[in-house]
């Protein structure tokens, strides 16, 4: 608690000229939080992608990966604020104080649904029922040597994008409020 107070104090004392108006987050969060988040967010994202990729054989999958990804974004939002995420990370114009990133999130879950649907429709072309999945074993690859490619991964990817997009849309909108 005292740490937070001290951090807030420091932020208020710090000169604004250096950081500029888009870095208002310094007023609310501590150096410790910012540093920790800076280190952990990439790790979280990596873990999320790993969970997504290994989902078919080990604990994980599209849904967990997606929720974890959303958590990473939440950390950025909470610690750095939406302006930072938009202007510095996504390179968006934040002049009119709207939450432009939500437009991207919307595209994300639409794309996810499309991918999932498409992965379900492909089997129809081969005369299998909707959403039939198949597995192919690839041998003799460089580095990997042996790799299993499951068509279910395409579907999982759809799940991943839909859930990430959906959660971030909700978070972004509610957060803006």
């Amino acid at each position, binding site marked *: 608690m005292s740490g937070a107070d001290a951090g807030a104090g420091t932020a208020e004392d710090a000169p604004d000229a250096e950081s500029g108006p888009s870095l208002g987050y310094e007023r609310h969060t501590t150096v410790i939080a910012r540093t920790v988040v800076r280190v952990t967010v990439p790790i979280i994202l990596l873990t999320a992608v790993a969970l997504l990729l290994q*989902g078919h054989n080990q604990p994980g999958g599209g*849904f967990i990966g997606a*929720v974890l990804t959303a958590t990473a974004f939440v950390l950025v939002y909470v610690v750095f604020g939406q302006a930072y995420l938009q202007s510095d990370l996504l390179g968006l114009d934040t002049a009119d104080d709207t939450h432009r990133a939500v437009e991207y999130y919307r595209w994300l879950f639409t794309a996810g649904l499309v991918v999932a649907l498409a992965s379900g429709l492909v089997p129809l072309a081969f005369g299998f029922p*909707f959403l039939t*999945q198949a597995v192919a074993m690839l041998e003799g690859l460089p580095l990997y040597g042996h790799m299993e490619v499951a068509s279910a991964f395409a*579907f999982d990817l759809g799940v991943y994008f839909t859930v990430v*997009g959906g959660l971030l849309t909700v978070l972004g909108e*509610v957060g803006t409020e």
Partner: protein
Amino acid sequence: MLETVLAVVFLPFVGAALTPLVYRALGERTAYYAAAVAAVCLALVARLYATGAHGVARVEWVPSLGVSLAFYVDGLALLIAFLASGVGVLILTYSGGYMHGEPGQAKYYATLLAFMGSMLGVALAGDLFALFTFWELTSLSSFVLIGHYTTDESSQYAARKSMLITVSGGLFMLVGFLALSWAGGTTLIAGDGSLLANADATVETLRTAGLFLPTLLLVGLGAATKSAQVPFHVWLPNAMEAPTPVSAFLHSATMVKAGVYLVGRFRPFFLAPFDSGDHGEGEAAAEAAAAAASALPAWTWVLVTLGLLTMTVTAILAVGATDIKELLAYSTASHLGLIVAGFGAANTYGAETGAFHILNHASFKATLFLVAGIISHEAGTRDISSLGGLRHDLPVTAVLAGLASLSMAGIPPFNGFYSKELLFESMWYLGEEFGGLTWLFPAVAVFGSVFTFLYSIKFLSLFLGDRRPSLGEVHRPPVAMLAPPAVLGVAVAVISAVPNVAIDAIVGDVYASAAVGEAHSFSVHLPTELSPYVLMSAITIGVGALLWPQYDRIHDGIRSLLRGPVRANWWYDNGVEGLTAGSKSVVPRVQTGLLRTYAAWALAGTAALALGAYLAAGVGLPAVELAEGTTVAVVLVLGVALVGAAAVTVAPSHVAGVLTLSILGFMVAIFYILADAPDLALTQLVVETLVLVIFLLVLDRLPAYYGSPERLVAARDAVLSVAVGGTVFLTVLLATAGSPDSIATRLVELAGLPPGEHHAPVFFDYGGGANIVNVILVDLRAMDTMGEISVVAMAALSVLTLIRMRSRGEAR
């Protein structure tokens, strides 16, 4: 045959879809385009008739559910189809003149064509559900057409009324259909293996279940509402708000015939056990029937009573009418009553009456409606008291009106006489066969017919006598408006002159469709000797002629009687008003706009349904025992979760509440870890974290604390919480009583794998994944996952919409 039938039914719909485009190109001449579409349908129906098509034609619709789109072609179907397409051609041509300069013509023609298609569908449907679908489509198009003048208050009222009455009747009919399809094990109406083919067995099943009379009444209710039988006749006079061609087409010649069509179609079914009366003719039939008849069939007493009551009541109302279209509307209901009574009678003549009168009524009533259209269009009024001596201005129309109204009055040698004579004959034999109160049938038939005679002559008198001074200039109608009634008038004349040709051509087949057992050929002729029913006709005409000079006094007398609850309309208006007021007073209780009210209702409802279902299914409580692997750690973790849950209820603020709640969530996650469910644990942990953040974001907006609730509210909430908690607890107990083995078996079964012992490897072999949870999610039950991600996307969209809408509202 199948192609022709499909073309007949769907061509009008295609035509309707194209109408807006055509209207852009042709403008008012769209009428002739629509008439051309109808003419093609007529030609196709004629082709069906000429090739002697008969029987079932079907296309698979939803093969996996055993639903097919079946059509059935026979005499009755062809007659109704002829009426729909033939009168359709005439009406659409006539509309070209009548609708000149009227608004909304593209909509008008499109709806008329769609209606025609639906009516052809009703006529040709060979499947209960196809019939029902087309049936409701006719109601729908009738609604649009009655409400043609959309800004007109009375036209809105009329459209709503017809919609309410006919559609709700249709729903009752649907219930009847469900009973029929349950009892018969098929939805086919006629043909091999259909309801009609197995009528005896199906009726027996219905009787054993005690459903025979209810089914009869339900189907009858559908027919009665559609065919404007008492007391549902109230919508028909209001429906005259529609443009006159619509009244002539829907509300005299075709749509209202759907009800009698239904009655005719199901007559052989419901009368199947009583087919003794239909084997022979005349006295032989009467004798055979007298020997076999033990009691009046339910079908007969329900429908003959309904039909005769309608015929009489609406004939009286027609005499009380002040507007020519109102008069014709009531008379339509009256004649429909006659047809229903005919089909109701359990003897040969009954079926003959119905079959022949469908044709006769369509011919003379459509003529009269078109004549009425000419009068209102050219004379500018429909008020009976201000019309008279129109023959000076409209000579050709006067001849047509004379022909048609004499036929309607049932005066020999016009065609209306023959079918009315058949009604008297069948009513007389009913009395003779069953005796007692059934002698009322012929008496009432004569009584009602007297009024029919009176209003028919009244309509004719509009053209006779001196020209009323109040009438302004009366124009000659354009050819497009005169030709259609002329064609119909010629039809009346032809049927009158050579009725047996018409019978041989089509009425005989119609009769065969409605007859029980073997049908024979029949013929009509002018009476040569005195028989009871000839006497009945004579009485009708004689008494009618005697009463004619008193017409105005009778008219006034009827109008003075029509007050308050005597009018069926009073019941309708008050009923609708009461329901509206009732709904309005209920809404504020249910729709409070407070989230807690909705939550309370939803939760209580779900709990009640679930508990009720458990009770109804009679499930017992499974034995609760400590599961294997219950270690100290598990007990400890769950114990902490419990403490967390208890702490939530006493938390002093929102933030504290949410934080304590997350203790519960994280403990559950730890429990998953201890229980060897890493996937669940991962998900639970991450979701818990996210939810916590969202909660904290939202809490910022809520008031600081709940305030102290009222005692009553608190008690209600406590009861609700206990109920919901209990339900969930019970559900979990019951749902987990099944062992995981059976879940695996079920999944294997769903995946279409060979049954037998399967363990985890089966998932590996089948789904190519070692993570069972994920293989289930993305492979075995991928369809469910698909649904779930759609829900996620939907939820995101709703949040987006809600919040955006609110901010937009605030900005305004």
